[in-house]
């Protein structure tokens, strides 16, 4: 039965991932890592180890998010719906889940190892690059399996049933809250210890003396992590797998709102507030994540974090819910450009709050931050929010295009909204006054032309037309 389930599971994974559309973003992720590290090295990070360590840290966290989240989802899926009613033993389901996650873990390990391997290979030669990529792949894969599945399942099995569907998120939150401040403190008090992972990878790729003992150490750690999957998984996962049906019991709490606002801007602000208030864990998680990123940002150029933050906020411009819920917006008597402007206003308090948090963390970690530079950060956050939200609405294919072009286009736009804030952030830090005017001018420019551009593009008014990328392009049901 396990092999049967795995066969179907891999068919679905193949259709989802092993296509140009699935792999192109992965490739771009690797290239982005390489570009990032290259920029770091050119612009002043003295030590490769100091540049590599935070990249490995962040990419590992990203991979853990993927694997832990996928684990919880897959366990839920395997116990609900079709698989929930079919006569399949928990053991078979868990093996299917573990097998599927090996693929996710492998992909994320590839993302982790390839970028670092390429950079170190360019520096220390092909053999060194291949060796470090292989070791990092094995370690990363074991980390994702061991922590993302093994430790995750152990923690989830200890949670009350109703909290288990959020188990992955809670696990990661815990991990971030424990590990990240430790790393930040270490970076300040003992940088050589904090960057020891980066140092080890450099030593391996340069094949310095002691490199092989480092390789063996990492492989040993990997073995330990894999044991974490094999031993606890079966016991812990089966303990809760059968009860996941209880997890879907819904929230029967009552909420009484006060006075309702009038006017679109106030309505959107109100909804933003309600959404955050009813998901406090998410709000706290975002705040912690922002703080951690700010504290651990390597090198002298950290202002672009404001841009990244703004981009993330801007990407939620149309996030009312699922695509079908978005139709509510389109049937209402509201112009899309009006919605865009008012949504920006409703997102501004969040932008301000997170910019304040970021500034506080930067000052707390003793970065030098002149007043004009701090103001630049706020403006950069707002600009990135505005630009990303505009891109999210405006830049979509307006006619049926080949899927490959869609993916390339979307991925390039995605990286543009990351790289442009990076460039402006560097300008803001090197020439703050000029940066202020450039960022401000860009903000005003987008605000002035964004609305008319959205209004003039007729195709944007129709969310269900194919090739209009607000919704997933698929053949509409007739």
């Amino acid at each position, binding site marked *: 039965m396990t092999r049967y389930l795995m066969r179907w599971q891999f068919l679905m994974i193949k259709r989802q991932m092993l296509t140009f559309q699935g792999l192109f973003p992965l490739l771009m992720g690797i290239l982005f890592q390489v570009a990032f590290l290259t920029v770091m090295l050119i612009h002043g990070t003295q030590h490769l180890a100091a540049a590599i360590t935070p990249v490995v840290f962040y990419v590992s966290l990203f991979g853990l998010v993927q694997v832990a989240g996928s684990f919880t989802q897959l366990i839920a899926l395997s116990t609900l719906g079709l698989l929930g009613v079919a006569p399949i033993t928990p053991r078979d389901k868990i093996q299917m889940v573990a097998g599927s996650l090996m693929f996710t873990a492998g992909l994320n390990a590839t993302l982790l190892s390839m970028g670092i391997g390429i950079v170190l290979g360019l520096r220390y030669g092909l053999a060194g690059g291949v060796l470090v990529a292989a070791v990092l792949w094995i370690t990363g894969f074991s980390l994702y399996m061991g922590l993302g599945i093994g430790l995750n399942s152990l923690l989830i099995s200890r949670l009350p049933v109703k909290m288990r569907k959020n188990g992955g998120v809670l696990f990661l939150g815990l991990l971030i809250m424990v590990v990240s401040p430790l790393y930040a403190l270490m970076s300040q008090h003992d940088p050589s210890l904090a960057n020891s992972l980066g140092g080890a990878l450099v030593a391996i790729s340069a094949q310095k003396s002691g490199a092989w003992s480092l390789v063996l150490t990492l492989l040993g750690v990997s073995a330990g992590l894999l044991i974490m999957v094999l031993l606890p998984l079966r016991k812990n996962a089966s303990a809760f797998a059968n009860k996941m049906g209880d997890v879907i019991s819904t929230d029967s709490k009552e909420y009484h709102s006060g006075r309702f606002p009038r006017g*679109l801007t106030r*309505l959107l602000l109100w909804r933003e507030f309600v959404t955050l208030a009813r998901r406090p864990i998410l709000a706290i998680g975002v705040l912690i994540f922002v703080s951690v990123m700010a504290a651990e940002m390597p090198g002298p150029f950290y202002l672009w974090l404001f841009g990244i933050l703004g981009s993330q906020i801007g990407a939620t411009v149309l996030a009312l819910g699922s695509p079908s819920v978005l139709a509510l917006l389109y049937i209402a008597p509201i*112009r899309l450009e009006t919605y865009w402007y008012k949504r920006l206003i409703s997102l501004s308090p969040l932008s301000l709050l997170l910019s304040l948090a970021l500034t506080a963390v930067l000052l707390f970690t003793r970065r030098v931050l002149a007043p004009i530079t701090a103001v630049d950060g706020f403006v950069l956050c707002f600009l990135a929010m505005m630009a990303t939200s505009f891109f999210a609405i405006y830049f979509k294919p307006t006619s049926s295009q080949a899927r490959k072009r869609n993916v390339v286009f979307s991925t390039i736009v995605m990286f543009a909204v990351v790289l442009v804030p990076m460039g402006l952030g560097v300008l803001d830090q090197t020439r703050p006054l000029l940066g202020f005017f450039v960022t401000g001018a860009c903000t005003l420019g987008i605000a002035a032309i964004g609305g008319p551009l959205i209004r003039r593009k007729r195709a944007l008014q129709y969310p269900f037309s194919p090739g209009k990328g607000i919704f997933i392009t698929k053949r509409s049901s007739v």
Partner: protein
Amino acid sequence: MSRILLQSRNLRRTFDTMTAVEDFSMTLEAGQLVGLLGPNGAGKTTTLRMLCGLMEPSSGSVVFDGLSLAENTVEAKRMLGYVADQPMILPLLTGWEYVQFVGGLYGMAPDVIEHNAMPLLERFNLSKAIHRRADSYSHGMQQKLALVAQIVHEPLVLLADEPTVGLDPASAAQMEEVFREFCQAGHAILISTHLLSMAQELCDKVLIMTKGNIVAEGSPATLVQEAGDSLQNLFLRLTQEEASP
């Protein structure tokens, strides 16, 4: 002749090589309840999406009470309500908040929304659940809530895509009663359905659609009389003829 609230002319929709709707023309007068009947894949949902502005027609026009949907989009949309086949429920909001939010999108004041919505919510037995999150409701409750939210701004025209699917008989009957009263108040409804019994009992006129074309049009009684057969048999004959090569 009653006031014409909705008029569509030669609506057509193609997707690459496939034509989902060939030529859809109809008028909807004040007080009318029209049923759009058709088998799965006939083009009913595509038609409704074009009529409410969610999908751009390949050609043709839609006019609401004299206002072109293409040229006076915002003003035309003020006049319509749309109930989708899947309820468009916002996560995290309670039923009451959802109604207020949707009403707010139409520019209505909170007290007016309350005045219009409460009687409907009570009728649909939702008043006790309105302070619970709407994503915790059953499908039937969500569908009823979605209808209330789309009627509260008193649209001239209501477009409903299979609104009674998933409702228990009592709820379906309540919904049909609300539809009748809505039309009696001078509004108009176009309902897409494949429930012939509902069409026969409820609708002033039916349009039978298959493979993107209207193949029959008229009141249920007239169609039955002219065909000399039941509505069901007429429907099956027409839709199977179209399906045959």
